[in-house]
């Protein structure tokens, strides 16, 4: 099957504007601006079943229809913060298929009546930002951005903006604060960005991969898109596969393929043919899934993964084998979240601090079973009390790790 999002895998020169245009590039944007009303674009995207690829899986067209039409100007912001451990798909898209992504930004902007769009990129994507700036300049030169697009009175500018190293800036309201030149700390919600976003104006925030799906949905139609994937999760997803597999990398698959297919067929199986132990489906924010036959044969779509008590999230699949102990895994995830907690609310700020202390004691070999129980109870107490999802994410691997891999913790505290 040919790729839809990772189209550069079939057309290696697609980052060249001429090549992109020869392959139907900007036909969708042109079609939308010159022949469709904004609301028709929104309806088509709604009908396609496209859901946000940034983690939450919210229906894209529905989000767009929430934009407050009594408050202008409107903005579109592409979320290119990509900082979830195990996630590296947006980077490949921007590096290798930049025009399809930029065309997606343009289509979203037209659909919600935005004349300016920002691409918020993690600060480490320095080279990628310079590259996108070049591509944006090429589009301006070719009159694909600017005033009077395709002979209409629609105008659009796209700007890149670099963050500076903070995972929390991937959370959409923290991202907007950061884009306004402030510390990246989440806002209280509601109001949500479609009513109160960038500079207090209605704003759509969409993930890079979500936006990159749009051009082909416009040209090929909603019905075509729905033939891919499952009823609950339409279309294709880019899975970032990492950890103890032979061939880590990005794999574009229709929703509904199993973990086994991803890990063993695409990923080549486990290094040295060792037994697999656990899967994290949504990066460091995941529940630790016990990798038994039932889990391996579970289809990767939003609804099915939920039956395992987990979430698909950004579909960043981290594979853990029998060379790894789970107390070490949660030591890593806790350190990440402790480092990235923005400090705005007490349960997350204090909770991640204490979890780090306790896990360090357990890992040092001087812990006792009461420490494991305490760690579990701190994580449990944090749940449902944090201002944003980061606090919640920090507890997922801890709680599921202790519940499902109790043996590892017994061993860790039995050392002394």
């Amino acid at each position, binding site marked *: 099957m040919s790729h839809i999002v990772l189209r550069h895998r079939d057309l290696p020169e697609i980052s060249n504007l001429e090549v992109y245009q020869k392959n139907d590039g900007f036909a969708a944007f042109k079609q939308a601006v010159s022949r469709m009303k904004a609301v028709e674009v929104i309806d088509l995207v709604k009908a396609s079943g496209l859901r946000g690829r940034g983690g939450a899986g919210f229906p894209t067209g529905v989000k767009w229809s929430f934009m407050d039409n009594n408050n202008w100007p409107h903005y579109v912001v592409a979320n290119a913060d990509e900082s979830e451990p*195990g996630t590296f798909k947006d980077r490949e898209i921007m590096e290798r298929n930049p025009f399809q992504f930029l065309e997606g930004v343009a289509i979203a902007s037209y659909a919600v009546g935005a004349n300016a769009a920002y691409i918020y990129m993690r600060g480490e994507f320095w080279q990628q930002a310079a590259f996108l700036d070049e591509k944006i300049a090429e589009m301006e030169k070719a009159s694909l951005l600017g005033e009077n697009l395709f002979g209409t009175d629609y105008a659009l500018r796209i*700007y890149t*903006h670099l*963050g500076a190293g903070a995972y929390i800036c991937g959370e959409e309201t923290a991202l907007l604060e950061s884009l*306004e030149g*402030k510390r990246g700390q989440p806002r209280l919600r509601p109001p949500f960005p479609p009513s109160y976003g960038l*500079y207090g104006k209605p704003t759509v925030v969409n993930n890079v991969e979500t936006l990159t799906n749009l051009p082909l949905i416009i040209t090929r139609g909603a019905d075509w898109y729905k033939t891919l994937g499952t009823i609950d999760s339409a279309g294709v997803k880019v899975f970032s596969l990492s950890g103890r597999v032979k061939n880590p990398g990005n794999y574009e698959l229709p929703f509904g393929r199993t973990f086994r297919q991803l890990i063993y067929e695409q990923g080549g199986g486990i290094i040295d043919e060792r037994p697999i132990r656990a899967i994290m489906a949504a990066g460091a924010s995941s529940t630790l899934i016990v990798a038994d036959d039932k889990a391996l044969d579970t289809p990767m779509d939003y609804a099915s993964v939920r039956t395992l008590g987990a979430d698909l999230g950004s579909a960043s699949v981290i594979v853990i084998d029998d060379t*790894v102990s789970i107390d070490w895994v949660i030591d890593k995830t806790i350190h990440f979240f402790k480092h990235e907690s923005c400090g705005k609310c007490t349960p997350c700020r204090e909770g991640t601090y204490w979890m780090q202390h306790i896990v360090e004691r357990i890992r040092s070999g001087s812990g006792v079973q009461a420490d494991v129980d305490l760690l579990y109870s701190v994580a449990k107490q944090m749940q449902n009390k944090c201002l944003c999802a980061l606090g919640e994410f920090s507890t997922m691997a801890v709680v599921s790790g202790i519940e499902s891999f109790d043996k590892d913790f017994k061993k860790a505290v039995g050392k002394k």
Partner: protein
Amino acid sequence: MSLAEKHAAEVKKILAKYPPEQKQSAVMPLLHLVQRKNGHVDRHAMQEIAALVGITETDVAELVGFYTLYHDAPAGKLRLQVCVDLPCALRGADQFLAQLCESLGIEPGGTTADGLITVEPVMCLAACDRAPMFQVQGPDGIAYHENMTVDKTMELIEAKRKEAKK
């Protein structure tokens, strides 16, 4: 010479990205500019940036503290930031960091005697399929180095040393 005079073209380009009444948005790219040119952001630069975008020096200092890519103190000319987050660590990143530091005779977080290289452990850099990997933050911005070995890294550092002597 002030920041706005010294880097007039770049400052102008940065300010043009945001609505004129939303100049505060420019604080992030201006901080990147100073970080890149000076290797860190000192109080004087914070004052200049604050004045350019119409916020207080304290506001700017808070941002420098909040974001990991801005540094308020000088370190090695090149910051070699090794990812040791979970996916990379599953592919040997911790050992890579330890061996690299040993080869350089420094501790993680330390700087080589010639002041060229500071090695720091960092969180995921969106390159998890190409571990061990690091980024180099320095006067030319940020560059990724992926699928690295200690030998290849030492060669890279030697090349940077020669470059620095020129």
